[in-house]
C-alpha cells in the first residue's frame, strides 16, 4: 500500500476526482478534477502547484561530497558553485543510464541529489574511502513544484523580494512564513518555475502559505496528468517511460547511454575517472546507435486518416506512454515513439521518440503508428528539435 506524502492532508481534501496513482510508494494525485485540463492551463497561463515529494533525495555532507558525485555521475561537480543547480544522469560501468536528476550545492560541503529511484544504495557502492556522509532525505523533506508564468510573483509574495533575483538553475535557502525552505529555480514543465523543499513536519504550513499567496494569481493545485503534458512539450525524458534504468533491464538492448536519450550534453568526458567513462569514450568514438528526438504528426494526414473512417480527428486528452513503432518512408521500422501528447498550447500532436541515428536530423520524414477503429495505420511525421515549447520567461 502506498503511503501519504507530507502534503496529503491538503491534497486529499482537494482531490475531488479521487484519481490517484502510486508514485515510488506514495499516493500521488493524477488530477484533482476528473479532467486535468484546468490544471494544465493553470501551469501554462498562471501557476500550478504540484506535490513532487516522491522524488528521491540524498543529502551529501563532507569535504569529498563533490568528488563522490563527480565519480558517480557524468558531470564534474567540483566546479559547481554554492547556490547552483545542475541537471545530470548517472551510468553503470557499461555507460548505460541508471537514473537522472539534479544536484544542488546548498553549502560549501553540502549537496543534494534528486532522482527517480533510490539513490543511497547506488552511492554507497562507490563511497568507500570518501570523506562524505550520505543521508537519505527522501522522507525527511516534502517538495512542491510551483510552475507557470506567475510563479515568480506568487513566490515573491510568499517568500520575499529576494526571489526576484533567483536565476535559472540557482537555489537559495529562504523562508516562507518563517519556515525554512530551500528554493530552487527548477522544474519539469519547461516554464518559469520553482521547486520548494521543506521539512516534512512543516510541509502543510508551506502549502497553505503558497496557496494563500497564489490565490489572487489564480494558482491551481496540479496533478501528474497535467505535468506529463507539460514535460512532453518541454521535451523532457521520463525514466521508466522514454528510457529504462540500466540496472533493472532484463535485456541489454533496453538500456540507453546518455547520448541515446538526449543527455550527451551533460557528460563531461575528459576529466578524472568516473563510472562508465571508458564505455562512454568508446561510444563517442564509435557513435551512438540511437538518438532521442521530438516528432510532430502531420495534422492534415491525421485528419484525413480519421475521415476515412467517418470520424473527426481524435487526440487523447492527456499524455500517452504506450510506445508505438516508428517507420521510415519505405516502411522499415527505425525506432519507437515512447510518449506523446496533444499540445493544447502549440496546437500540435507531439511525441518523444527513439530512432536509429541517421533518422534523427530535424526535418527527417518518418511514419508513426496510429490505431483508428482497432486498425493499425500510420501517418507521416517530422523530426523536430526539442524542446517543442521553450518560452523566454523560463530563463528570464
Amino acid at each position: 500500500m502506498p503511503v501519504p506524502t507530507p502534503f496529503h492532508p491538503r491534497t486529499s481534501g482537494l482531490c475531488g476526482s479521487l484519481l490517484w496513482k502510486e508514485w515510488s510508494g506514495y499516493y500521488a494525485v493524477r488530477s484533482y478534477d476528473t479532467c486535468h485540463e484546468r490544471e494544465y492551463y493553470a501551469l501554462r497561463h498562471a501557476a500550478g502547484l504540484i506535490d513532487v515529494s516522491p522524488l528521491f533525495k540524498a543529502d551529501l555532507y563532507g569535504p569529498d561530497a563533490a568528488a563522490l558525485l563527480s565519480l558517480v555521475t557524468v558531470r564534474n561537480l567540483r566546479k559547481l558553485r554554492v547556490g547552483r543547480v545542475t541537471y545530470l544522469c548517472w551510468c553503470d560501468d557499461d555507460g548505460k543510464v541508471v537514473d537522472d536528476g539534479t544536484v544542488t550545492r546548498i553549502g560549501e560541503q553540502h549537496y543534494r541529489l534528486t532522482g527517480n529511484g533510490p539513490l543511497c544504495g547506488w552511492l554507497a557502492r562507490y563511497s568507500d574511502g570518501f570523506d562524505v556522509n550520505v543521508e537519505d532525505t527522501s522522507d525527511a523533506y516534502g517538495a512542491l513544484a510551483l510552475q507557470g508564468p506567475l510563479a515568480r510573483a506568487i513566490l515573491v509574495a510568499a517568500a520575499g523580494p529576494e526571489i526576484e533575483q533567483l536565476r535559472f538553475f540557482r537555489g537559495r535557502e529562504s523562508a516562507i512564513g518563517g519556515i525554512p525552505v530551500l528554493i530552487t529555480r527548477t522544474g519539469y514543465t519547461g516554464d518559469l518555475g520553482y521547486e520548494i523543499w521543506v521539512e516534512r513536519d512543516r510541509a502543510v504550513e508551506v502549502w497553505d502559505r503558497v496557496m494563500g499567496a497564489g490565490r489572487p494569481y489564480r494558482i491551481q493545485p496540479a496533478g501528474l496528468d497535467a505535468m506529463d503534458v507539460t514535460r512532453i512539450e518541454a521535451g523532457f525524458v521520463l525514466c521508466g517511460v522514454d528510457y529504462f534504468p540500466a540496472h533493472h533491464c532484463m535485456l541489454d538492448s533496453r538500456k540507453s547511454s546518455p547520448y541515446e536519450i538526449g543527455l550527451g550534453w551533460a557528460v563531461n568526458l575528459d576529466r578524472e575517472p568516473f563510472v562508465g567513462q571508458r564505455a562512454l569514450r568508446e561510444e563517442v568514438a564509435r557513435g551512438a546507435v540511437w538518438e532521442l528526438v521530438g516528432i510532430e504528426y502531420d495534422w492534415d494526414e491525421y485528419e484525413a486518416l480519421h475521415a476515412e473512417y467517418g470520424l473527426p480527428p481524435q487526440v487523447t486528452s492527456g499524455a500517452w506512454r504506450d510506445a508505438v513503432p516508428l517507420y521510415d518512408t519505405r516502411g522499415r521500422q527505425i525506432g519507437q515513439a515512447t510518449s506523446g501528447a496533444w499540445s493544447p498550447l502549440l496546437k500540435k500532436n507531439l511525441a518523444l521518440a527513439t530512432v536509429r541515428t541517421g533518422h534523427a536530423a530535424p526535418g527527417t520524414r518518418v511514419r508513426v503508428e496510429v490505431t483508428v477503429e482497432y486498425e493499425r495505420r500510420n501517418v507521416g511525421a517530422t523530426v523536430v528539435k526539442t524542446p517543442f515549447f521553450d518560452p523566454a520567461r523560463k530563463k528570464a
Partner: protein
Amino acid sequence: MSEHPHSSHYDAIVIGGGHNGLTAAAYLAKAGRKVLVLERRHVLGGAAVSEELYPGFTFSVCSYVVSLLRPHIIRELELARHGLEIIPLEASFLPLPNGDSLTRWSDPERTRREVARFSRHDSERLPEFSLAMTKLCWLAKRIIDEPAPDPASLAPRELLKLLRLGRTMKDDPTDLRWLNFKLLTMSAVDFLDLWFESDVLKAPMSVSGIIGTFLGVRSPGTAYVLLHHYMGEIDGAFRAWGFSKGGTGGISLAIANAARAHGAEILEQSGVERVLVHGGKANGVVLENGDTVRASTVISSVDPNRTFLRLVGEEHLEDEFAAQIRRYRLRGSSGKVNLALDRLPEFSCRPGDGPHLHGDIAIAPSIDYLERAYDEAKYGDFSERPYINVVIPSLVDPTVAPPGKHVMSCFVQYAPYDIKEGPEHWPERREAFGDAVVDTLAEYIPGLRESILYRQVLTPWDLEQEFGLTEGNIFHGELSLDQLLFLRPAAGWARYRTPIEGLWVCGSGTHPGGGIMGAPGELAAKTMLQSRAL
C-alpha cells in the same frame, strides 16, 4: 479391500499415484495407451495429498505450496478444466524474537520500505537480485523443461543438445554466466552475501537453499537449491508461490481427473510388492494382495532406492548400477507438523489478521539460528529450535477449515532421518519433536498451545513408512550437484530408462528433480512415446 484391475494386461503400469506417476499416466493415456496406476494408500497424491484428518479440517499433509508445476503441463493436460485452482501467496512474513518483524510483499515499493528499516542498502539491491534470479531462472527453465543432456554421448543429437545449451549460455552476459557457475557451487549464504548485508533479510531468503536438503545455509551447493525454489512460476511470473485450493491434493486429483478422462485406470489401496523381471525384462507387477498384473512396460514413480533395491531387487541389477543406487543420497532432513486451530494464531509482534499472514511465515530469525539448527542435526538430533515454514491456507481458502477456524501447516527442518538412536526409534521421539515445534512457535504466538484442536506430527520415519519416501527425503534424493541433471538418479541412466528392459522411472528422483513440478512424469512419458517404448 482393494479393487481389482479391470483387465489382466496393460500397455503400461505406473507404480505410485503421486503427482508424477499420475502425470506420466495422463500423458500416456492421452497418447492412446492402456494405462493402470497403482497407489498403495487409500488416497491419491503421494506427497501432494489432502486429507481430512480431523472433522472439518483438510490438511496438505506433506507438500503445502506449489509453484514449480510446469505451465505447459497445465495447458496440455487441461488441468484448469479438471479442477486445478491456485491461489497466490501474498507475502513472506518473518516474525522476530525481539518483537519486530519483516514482511516482503508483492508490492515492490512496500517491500523496499520494509527492508529499508533493516538495511537501506539491501532495500535498493533487492530489485537487482530479483532481476538476476529471473535471468538465471530463464536459463534454468530451458534445462528443466527438457530431458537432461548426455555429456558422455557422441551421438549427433546429444552433441546438438549440448551445443544448444552452450549457446543459450553464450548469449548471456558474462557476469550472468559467472553468476551461474557461482550458483552451482556456492553456499546460499555466500551467494546472498554478493548482494545483501542484513541478516534479517538474508536468513529467510537463505532457507530456500536448505529445504529438503541435509545441508546448512553455509554449506556449499545450497545456492542451487535456492534457485530451484526461485524457479517456480505462476502464469509466467517467476518466484510466485501459491496454495492449491483444497490443499495440494487438489493438484494430484486434477491430474488424476485428466488421466481418467483419457481412459487411464487408477486403483487405490493397491500397493506393489515387486516388479516381475523375467530374463532381464520387466513384464508386470505383483501386488501386496498377491494379484499379478501384466504389462509390457512398468513405470515406477517411487524413489530410485525403493524402485531398484526393493521392488526390483539387487539380484536383477549389475553391481556397478546397484552400487550407484545404494550411494544415492536420500538423507531426509525435515518433518511436518499439521495443526487444527480453533482460532487465528496471534503473533505477538504483529497481532491480528492481515495480509502478512496470507503467505508463508518463516521462523528463521538469523543465519546463526539456522546454522545452529543444522549443528544439532549433524550429530543426530532434531533441532530444538528449528527452521519452520508456516502457512495458514484457511485464511485464503475457506474450503479447508470451518468458519473462524484454521489449519496451520508447519514444515520443519532439521529432523534428520538418522537420529542417533536409530531411525526406527523416531516413533518414541515423535511427540518430543512435535513439542519442540510448538514450543518454538509459541515464542512468537503465545496463545498457540491453547488453540490447538488436533496435532499431526510427521517425522522422516513417518514419511518413509506412510508415504514411501525412503529415509523421509521429500525430493526423492537430495538436489545436490552430483545428483542432478545427467547424474539423476545414476550416471548414464538419467533418461527415465533403467538397466531393466521395459522398466522406466518417472519420479522426483529423476531429472529435473523434486517439488510439485510434474516435469519428471511428463518428460518420462514423452521420452517413452518418442522412443516407441510402448
